[in-house]
């Protein structure tokens, strides 16, 4: 009876909904609980992103809350295609903004240096692969993929081969090749992105 009186179970239905469904429902209704449900799915990741830039835990918690408040506003008014990508950009920008403000106050000099040091890596991360999931089932895909891999730079080719074909971890690849883990990740990200672009061109030509 108690369960029945709690009258429900909207929360249960929300938990089963996709990100897109929650976003759409939030845009239509403005119910902030929908935004919270969606945001809480990623809160640990937003916290991790903020933690990368902000050393102070309290600053970090405040930044995550600020990202949530921004989510509440932006998700209502704009159409967000990929919520996780949007969250990453928003969290990163919020941290940068905080650090800049802190830098002006000369309080967060160290965090700023940390950001400057890491930022180049993230610039490399932008624009990931998004194509060809369907086409990878076509018979000539393997051949085209091999050709594309052979055209990669050696560092990227080596890392791609060890990761995707020998299923080695970042750490194992680093110890095998002598690259640092960060370099391995960077080669893999760039190599994978280039592969996507090359495959797109090759498929286009083959049609």
């Amino acid at each position, binding site marked *: 009876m108690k369960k029945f009186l709690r009258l429900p179970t909207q929360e249960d239905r929300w938990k089963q909904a996709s990100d897109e469904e929650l976003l759409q429902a939030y845009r239509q209704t403005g119910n902030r609980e929908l935004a919270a449900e969606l945001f*809480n799915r990623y809160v640990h990741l937003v*916290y*991790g992103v903020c933690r990368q830039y902000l050393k102070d835990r309290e600053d970090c918690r405040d930044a*995550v*809350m600020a990202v949530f408040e921004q989510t509440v506003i932006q998700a209502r008014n704009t159409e967000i295609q990929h919520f996780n990508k949007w969250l990453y950009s928003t969290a990163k920008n919020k941290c940068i903004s905080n650090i800049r403000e802190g830098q002006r106050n000369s309080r967060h000099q160290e965090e700023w240096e940390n950001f400057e040091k890491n930022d180049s890596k993230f610039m490399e991360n932008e624009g990931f692969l998004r194509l060809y999931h369907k086409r990878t089932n076509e018979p000539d*895909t393997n051949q085209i993929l091999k050709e594309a891999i052979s055209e990669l730079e050696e560092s990227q080719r080596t890392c791609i081969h060890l990761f995707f074909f020998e299923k080695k971890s970042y750490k194992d690849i680093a110890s095998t090749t002598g690259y640092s883990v960060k370099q391995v990740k960077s080669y893999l990200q760039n190599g994978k992105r280039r592969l996507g672009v090359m495959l797109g061109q090759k498929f286009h030509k083959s049609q």
Partner: protein
Amino acid sequence: MNSIFQKRSCLTQREVMQYLNDELSDEQRYDVENHLLDCELCSAAVEGYAQSQNFRTAEEDIQEVVARVNASVKGPARRRLAWINRAAAVALVLVVSYAVFLYWSASQPARLFAAYFEPAPNTYITYRSADSNPNPIPEELKQALGYYNTEAFDLSLPHFKNYLADHPDDPQALLLAANAYLQAGQAEQAVQCLLRIEARGETLQSEVPWYLALAYLQQKQLPRARQYLENVMATPSSPFREKAGEILEKIK
């Protein structure tokens, strides 16, 4: 080859911790690292956790943030809504319960009638040969009884009606007609037949109050039904006393 471009959802908090603690199987680790190549959010988050090194404080912080997020969206308006929902639920339960009670109460006499009604047996004496019958049965009554005996009560009714037009004081025909009316769900006509027998006050003194009680039950007139059931109980020789007592107990 498909595994290069396969998609998966973002990492859970548990997966992040397991990955950083080297607690994943090779297959799981490959899935995670392949996802990290494509997902800026997860990639940056893993970097962040790896830098902080203190997962316990991170978990505490996340719990606190989740609590703040949830508290910020559950304002008074929601509480009012929840209160209204609860009140509506209680009202609904009460209304449904009352409706069920009313239905149960209203249907009780009909259920009792169905449980206790058995058509009176035909007690006319019929002869195999018409020649040997000193008082031959009129054709209408014969047809009425023919249908009555085969439980075709609705077909018997017109013939009883015709017969009773010429023989209005035949108590046996009135009783059987009343039973046919009861069986057909026409309690009012049944009552009229039975009251005509009762007015004579001579015969069928056990049957008449019993079937009148059943007719009033079918009409959902409980006080009158109770009155005739008590008459049955007051007649020591009535074969219906036991049943009348049971009904009286149920409609007390």
